[in-house]
């Protein structure tokens, strides 16, 4: 097997991690916060923003921005891994835990999956169990400041234990379903589950 060509003196913009144990396989540590997008950034006026829990729930519930801000919130410090290979450690977010949101609905017994949908044409799918028990939150602040549109503001879903494409930007709600419905990237070659520790990148 011929040796692969190597560019003399090229290392890329990566950091040598002294926290190697915290990096999932195949990931590189980043200190900035890359902006990745599948489309143009929406500009959502707050008076038209809403967040809805719908689908297999007894009664659908929707919050306006003012109502959402009144929900109990807390800060979350988590590591985030993007399938494009960057990992960022100790990211500070503030928002509402999905557990708190679920206190306001009664899920049907056959609700097994969730589709997170955004105010744009983006969706991503998760098993219900992956968003319970402190594993997911809806964030509206990053690093102490309101979440910028480029990073998903006014609010985005954050599911730190899965690849970051599951953390839907500009999130508009969660739809509970019986069957799994592959979302935007899952239906185009990406792994349905997306666990970075098992390197579940591709389908």
């Amino acid at each position, binding site marked *: 097997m011929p040796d692969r*060509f*190597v*560019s*003399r*003196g*090229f*290392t*890329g*913009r*990566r950091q040598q991690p002294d926290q190697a144990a915290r990096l999932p396989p195949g990931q590189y540590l980043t200190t900035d916060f890359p902006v990745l997008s599948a489309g143009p950034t929406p500009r959502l006026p707050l008076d038209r923003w809403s967040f809805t829990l719908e689908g297999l729930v007894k009664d659908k519930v929707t919050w306006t921005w003012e109502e959402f801000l009144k929900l109990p919130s807390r800060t979350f410090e988590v590591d985030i891994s993007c399938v494009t290979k960057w990992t960022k450690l100790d990211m500070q977010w503030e928002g509402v835990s999905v557990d708190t949101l679920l206190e306001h609905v009664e899920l049907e017994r056959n609700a097994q999956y969730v589709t997170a949908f955004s105010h744009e044409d983006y969706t991503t799918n998760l098993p219900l169990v992956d968003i319970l028990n402190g594993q997911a939150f809806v964030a509206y602040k990053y690093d102490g400041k309101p979440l910028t549109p480029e990073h998903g503001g006014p609010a985005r879903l954050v599911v730190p234990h899965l690849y970051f494409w599951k953390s839907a930007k500009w999130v508009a709600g969660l739809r509970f379903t019986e069957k799994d419905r592959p979302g935007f990237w899952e239906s185009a070659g990406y792994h349905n589950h997306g666990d970075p520790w098992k390197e579940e990148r591709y389908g």
Partner: protein
Amino acid sequence: MKASIEWQIATVKAVHPETHSVKTLTLKLPNWQRHRPGQHYDIRLTAEDGYQAQRSYSIASEPEREGEIDLTVERIESGEVSPYLHDVLIPGDRIEVRGPIGGYFVWEGSRPEPLLLIAGGSGVVPLMSMLRHRSVAGGKIQTRLLYSSRTFDDIIYFAELERLQGVKNGPKVYHTLTRTQPEGWKGYARRIDRQMLGEVAKPLGGSVQVFICGPTLLVESTADELVGLGIPAAQIRTERFGPSGPA
């Protein structure tokens, strides 16, 4: 058109500074293929551990120059590839490239319509390939270049553009400097706007073919203004470089 564009290993023949942040690399290609002005090459860098980064760079040189190409590269501080090309690469080094690529943003002078080229910053590079080709091929088609730069020192190919202008049937070159201008500056001194475009484009008539290349915002607003001036969108071809040129 079917063309093989496999990766090949080129050798750096020369490195030549154009401005404080822009350099031209001359690459000798073992599998050189005559390109069309406006096309680009992809460059791929590979680290020892297999990590790769890849970017596209427009060809600056004319297709008539056989066996080698010029790529003019702006150094983007936060970029991953351009700092390597500027800070590390020296003549004699080898580099993986693939091309020539592109069929949409090309001009070869086979049509008789007048030509309007509009550049923002390093967006002038593919347009330079067109102008150099035109010059070597002895083109007579009425041609104008409107070139926006921040300051005089940021203008790439200034001397060569002056020379091309001075030749019979040469292109007319209009510069605009958006940030600061030197004393005695006689060119435009603001961002490209509808009035400027009207002055530069109108004399070329309604059948003018337009090529715009540069930062996305400049490309978008310029294209919009030209349509507002009555130039059909089908006659306008664009190449967006992203926020500030390819990284």
